[in-house]
Structures are given as C-alpha cells and as structure tokens.
C-alpha cells in the first residue's frame, strides 16, 4: 500500500498534468469554457432553491442550503466512483502504447473531482449568505475531512477500476449501486431525524439506529461531519470518523493489493 502511494507521489507531475487537462478538456469546446465549472453547481443550486425554497413551502428551514452542504461532497464521491470504475478499462491507448503507471489513472480521476469540489465550495458559502449564514471557524475541519474522504474514495476507486478490467459488468452494477447509496446516505435527509425501529423482531432506539447508519456507511459518517462543519457550525463527532479512518485504511490496503496483483494483466485485457 505504501509503495503504491509512494509511486503515486513519484508520478505527481503526470497526475497533475492529467488532472489539469481533464478540467480544461471538460468545457474546452464550449463558449463559456471554464466558467461552467462554477455555472453547473450554481444552476443546480438554483433549481433546488426554487423547488424547496419557493414551491414546497413546508420544506424544513433553510433546506436548499442544508441539501447543498451535503450534495457537494456526495457529488465528489459519486462522480469519482463512477468515472473511476472505467478509468483503467477505458484507457487502452495509454496502457498498451507506452509504459504507463496504471495507478495514476484512478488517482487522477479522484484528484480532478477533488479540485472540482474545492472550487465549488465558495459557491456554497454564497448560498449560505443568501440564507443569512456565514462560515465559521469550524471550516478548519475541512482539511482532515477532505483528506479522509479523498483516501476513502481512492480506495474504492482502486478496487473497482482493477476489477472492472476483467469484469466489465461492474460499471453497470456500480451505476445502480450508487443510486441506491445516494438514498441510503443522509444527503436528502438528516440522520438525526431517523426514528427508532420495532420491526422483524428487532427493537432499536432512535439513537441506536442513527449510530448504526453512521457506523455501517462511511459516507454517512462523512456526510454528517460535512453538515456539522458547513451547516450546523459544530465540531464533528470524532468516533464515527475514526471508524471511517479504520475502514479506509483497510479498504486501501485491500484495494492496492488487488490492484498490484492485477495490474500486470491490464495491458492484455483492456
């Protein structure tokens, strides 16, 4: 795992060049160009604000802002995973023509989306100001949260991209799984509004269910923490994040092991 990350650092110039190109290429042919990086989230923000702020009057208070403080980190995760799954299998041109460090491919997809996320955070602040909310000192927690989510995403993307080379059905499965994951993760809803459970012979208090949701799903824990930083202005709970860190390190170890073992056949199978 360490060797893999060290190599990634070695190839940082390549990683950086590919990410920058990806960011530039996305809107290259369009008239507004790079502005779309900001326009896209702004426009979807406007849509949500219209629906939940104006049309649906019984929506929770400041709901568009609440929604967006979770949606941005989620978009970072989900686009990374979806694009990352095919990142190796789609780059036959690079893998079979030159000696190319394969792990750069999933990594640069994650990096590109990370940059996109960071660029869109100021828009979130603008939205907050529109809802009489100003960013607080809790923003310092952005750094460890960002690092944690990036590592977790990288681990998932390593694993999926390596497996998708030999098993292409995975990319279609993942598209559906991500949709399910979107609803299982508290992006649209608040984890603290989850009620207790008394079904199938299980009796759980609201607190227990909430803990279970956060501990089982690393993205739920991260999402709650992002909300604490952006929306509620409080210090995130450390315990669920430590669990996420544990899961992340385990997944990253497993993913790099799988990736290293499979990379030799990438050039033959893509």
């Amino acid at each position, binding site marked *: 795992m360490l060797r893999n990350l060290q190599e990634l650092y070695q190839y940082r110039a390549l990683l950086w060049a590919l990410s920058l190109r990806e960011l530039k290429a996305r809107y290259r042919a369009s008239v507004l160009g790079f502005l779309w990086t900001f326009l896209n989230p702004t426009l979807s923000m406007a849509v949500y604000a219209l629906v939940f702020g104006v049309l649906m009057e019984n929506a929770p208070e400041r709901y568009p802002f609440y929604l967006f403080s979770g949606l941005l980190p989620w978009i970072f995760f989900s686009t990374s995973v979806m694009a990352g799954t095919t990142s190796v299998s789609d780059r036959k041109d690079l893998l079979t023509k030159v000696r*190319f460090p394969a792990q750069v491919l999933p990594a640069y997809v994650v990096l590109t989306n990370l940059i996109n996320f960071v660029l869109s955070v100021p828009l979130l602040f603008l939205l907050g100001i529109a809802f009489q909310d100003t960013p607080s000192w809790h923003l310092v927690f952005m750094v460890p949260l960002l690092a944690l989510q990036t590592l977790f995403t990288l681990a998932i993307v390593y694993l999926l991209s390596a497996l998708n080379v030999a098993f292409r059905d995975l990319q279609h499965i993942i598209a559906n799984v991500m949709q399910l994951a979107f609803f299982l993760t508290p992006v649209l809803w608040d984890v603290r509004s989850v009620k207790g459970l008394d079904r199938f012979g299980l009796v759980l208090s609201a607190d227990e269910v909430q803990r279970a949701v956060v501990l089982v799903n690393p993205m739920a824990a991260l999402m709650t923490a992002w909300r604490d930083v952006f929306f509620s202005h409080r210090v995130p709970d450390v315990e669920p994040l430590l669990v996420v860190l544990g899961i992340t390190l385990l997944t990253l170890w497993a993913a790099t092991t799988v990736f290293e073992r499979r990379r030799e056949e990438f050039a033959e199978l893509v």
Partner: protein
Amino acid sequence: MTDAIVLDNVTKHFQKRSKRNEITTLKSEVVRILKGQRKLVEPATHIEALKGVNLVVPRGTTMGIVGRNGSGKSTLLKLVTGIYAPTSGTVQVNGRISALLELGAGFHPDFTGRENILINGIILGMSRAEVKSRVDQIIEFAELGDFIDEPVRTYSSGMFMRLAFAVATHVDPEILIIDEILSVGDAHFGKKSSAKMNEFRQSGKTILFVTHDLGSIETWCDTAVWIDGGKTRMVGDPRQVVGAYRQAVAAAEAEGERVGHSALSSPGLALPDVKAPAPVEVKSPVTVEELRLRDGVGAQPSAFSADGALDAHLDLALSAPASCDVSVEIATVGGVTLFKTMYPVGPLPAGKTTVRLSLPRLGLGDGAHVLTATAWSGELPPHALSKSLVVAPHPSAVGLIRPEHAWATEPAREPVAPLPAAQATAQA
C-alpha cells in the same frame, strides 16, 4: 560494461477469451444449458506468443528484429518496455527506456500541439522542466509552423505523426525501442528522422527495433535477430540473418505454390527449415568477402547521383583455384529486379581477387535500392552479399529508371526534322 537488455528464457502466454466466434456470456451460457448441451472441453485456452527467448543486447549497439507477422516481435518489444510482464523467465533492462511503439499516446484532439507536447512528454517519462526546455526543439523538428497552436484534431495525419515522432525522439533515453515507425512523413522528414536515428547511434545509445524493411536492418544494425514462431531462430550479423530469413520466406512461398498451402498462410506458424544445400558440406570455393560501391571519383557518397557513375568492387576470396562466375543485381526494396548482369570471370587462383563492374551512368530513379553481388563456381551453391544503394532524387524526374534523355521545342506546322545530334545528349 553491463548489457542494456537481457532476456533470459522468456515466455509469454495470452489467455484466449473466446472459442471460435462465440464469446462466453451469461446469455450464451443460459442458451447452452437450456439446449441441454454439455460444456465444451476447451483443450487450448492460451496462446503461446513467446516460447523461451534468450537475447542479449549489449550497451551502445543497434539490434534489429525480423520475423513474420505473428511471430512474436511486438510482444517481445512490449515485454522489454514493461507493458507486459513475462509468464516465465526474466527481463532485465538497464537504463532509461523510451518506446516508440505507437506514436501519440495520450494526445487529446481538443488541445493544441503545444499543450499536447507537454502531456505527451510527461507520459513518455520526461519531467515538466525537461519538456519545457525542449519544447522549442520539438516544435522546430516537427515543422508545424503556426499549426502548433491549433487543436490537434485539425491536423493532417502526417502532421500528427510528425509531432508525435518529434516528442518521442526528444525524450533522450538510453535505450530506444522502435516498432516500425521510421517511415513517418514525406521524403524530407524521413531524411530528418534517419539523421536523428544516426545521432542516437553515434551518441552511444542502445536501439532495439522491429521492421519489415530488411534493407534498413542491413544498413542500420550491428546485430540482427530473427524471431520465428515465438523463438529466436537466428542471431548474428545482419546480412546473414536477413539473408537466411529471405531464403526461408522464398522457400515457404515456393512450397505454397507447389502444395497450395504453406506456413505463410497461417500467421505465427514457424517457417519450415530451408532445405538449402547445406553450406558446411558442399562449401562454395568462392565467396564475396566485401562489396564496395563508389562513384566516378572513387568516393562513397550517402546517395548516388542518377546521372553519375557507379563502380561496384567485388572482393572475391577463393579457398582453392576455381572457375568463377559473378553477377550483380539491383532490385527495389520490395524485391523487383531493376537490372541484373552476369559475368563469367573464368579460372582464378586461390586467394583474393577483385572484380569491378562499372556503370558510366547509373540511370536509376531515386530511392533506396538493394545491390546484390553473387559469386559461384559451376554447380556449387552461390554466395551473395547485399548492400543498400541510395539514389538521390532529381527535381524533374520520377520513376524507377532514368534513361538518358533530352527535351526539345520544335517550331509548329513544319515537317518533322530529325533531332540535331548535339541535342541528344543527357540532360545535366
């Protein structure tokens, strides 16, 4: 001095992922189960591309690889480059390696030539600073002019290849791997590419390259290796290896004509052994030791003038006194004979003799040709030696040959008069 590339008993197998046209999918499996067929036992599910190759490329030498399509040449290059990992055996590479397997890896059509130079250079292993410092050289070499700041998708294929070649050759590797790409661009750019290659050789780089242009193997390489059916069939002097390869292909073609099929009709199959008169047993008493090509004044130009003279000196070596015949043939690289002449030298003493063929005027079209000198004695097997013969282009003529000719303008509406003798000389 360590060797640049060492391959030790390298094999490479590929998984065969389909049986005939049928790829195994869930659907085909379900259909098979519904039809109640039993699962087919597949005997051979892998392809042996390389079956134990040993090869050593000493530092600073140029080695050419010849062989048929499907014989494993490209697989070999990909193993050396590190794109593939060997199934068994070891591949050892000492030094920074740059591979020109396919040009333009990672080029993005929407980006300008200049932007693509940066990313392609980094992909090929240069640092950002290195690329930046060489950008001007690369642009100059590629000769794209103002197009360098246009998106690559607007380029013609020639421009694309020139840019890609320019980046690839400016990586400054210690070991260069080349797969059949020297024929990039027009004649002018081809000359520049050849000069670049020469520069690489003279600066002591190691070059490993695959080509079907056997003439360039003979002119460029220090050693040649013939890969056949996934094995090294012959390693050694380029002329001998190329000669043996040509003979084997010719023999297989002859067999194909006779029997209706030959090893040539199925890709990758090893060529049959040439049942040539075994050279060890009936050794020809006469051999062409050296073949020297000179122009009218005794110089050895890189390209001969079509209107100038050519002297071919054949240094013959005789192991015993014998009566000899020689021939000289000039053929295109593709093997079409342009001219062949034979000369019965007659009885010669043992030792060395030089026979000279003089052409006061070469009279050939421009391009690279192959001149082959052959010597034999009676019915014994001949011995031949080939040299590449490059003819310089002429601004006002094209074609394979260039006979003496003259142009004249004649007054209109007058009876045709015979040409004045003075005008019937060759054009300068």
